[in-house]
């Protein structure tokens, strides 16, 4: 199943329409064991700077809360990593990993 994230980019990015793999990360303290070896879309609960640790392998970062002025969004812009605010996601019911597409509205 492909999860469709609908929302808007908080960074200056255009539509990333291809199918991508994603991982849900709720707690950054577990990251050393959860980081992917290949570029991945990370789904996180906030744009806390804690998630800076995702940058080496982030294809994009999807969140359900935050703004263009959130610290992680500012940092992501500097590192050319798209940040996407998904308005249709219930993080509690989202699988811990899977395939997804980002649909900017």
């Amino acid at each position: 199943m492909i999860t469709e994230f609908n929302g808007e980019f908080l960074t200056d990015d255009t539509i990333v329409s291809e199918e991508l793999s994603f991982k849900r990360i709720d707690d950054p303290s577990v990251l050393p064991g959860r980081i992917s070896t290949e570029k991945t879309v990370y789904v996180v609960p906030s744009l806390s700077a804690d998630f800076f640790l995702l940058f080496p392998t982030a294809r994009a970062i999807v969140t359900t809360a935050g703004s263009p002025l959130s610290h992680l969004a500012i940092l992501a812009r500097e590192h050319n990593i798209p940040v996407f605010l998904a308005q249709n996601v219930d993080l509690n019911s989202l699988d811990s990993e899977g395939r997804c597409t980002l649909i900017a509205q």
Partner: protein
Amino acid sequence: MDEKLVHNPSRFSELFNRVARESTESMEKRLSGGFFARVKFEGKLRAYLMAGYRSTYTRLRDFTLPDREERTVENIQKLVNTFKEIYPLIVFNNIALARIAPDGSFTVEVMTKEDEKNRILREFSEGSATCEEFKEQFGHYAFNGYEAQERRFSEYDCEELKKFGDIISQVPHQVKLSLGEYMEEKTGAATPSHLVGIRELGKNQALKIVSAIRDELIRLEKLDTFESSVFDHSYEDMIRL
């Protein structure tokens, strides 16, 4: 959707979300309120962007934790009151930042506290800084840092911290001015870099308060008999003790 200061807060740390929410709502109310309240607030914002940000910078830079008392509960009260003084400075600064750069399309030209934290962690991973140096400067930080229940970096093993440093060292880094140098160099109206730097300086100081509150709560847990974790009690429960 708005970001919460503390994600999945413990009962005690709901306090920090409440302080953040009340502070934000109070300022937003003035921005959207009656004519005179709005004019007054707009004037305050303009003054902040012209020069006022510099006194907030100085106040945050020179901040020190309040002196400790004998009684743990009094210390917690004192620290919470200090948090209530410091946090609105961050909220107001955020409103000012949103006023001059609402879409976030700017480059931060200063090394923020968060950048400094990552730099020392990277240097520790690469062998040019020690674990103790990192803990001395950023031991009060934590993941989900405004959650008092969260273990502080000072409580981590150096091996654990090195794993985070190893990850961070894979991210390209840029050499930037320190906030102090930038403040000296750019003395005119506030830029986004000033305000992002001040925000992160404020966070650094606010986390010192949260970390000190955590220490007091752990001390209290050792003194008193709690049926559950001390963090499962609200702040109001604590001050009734």
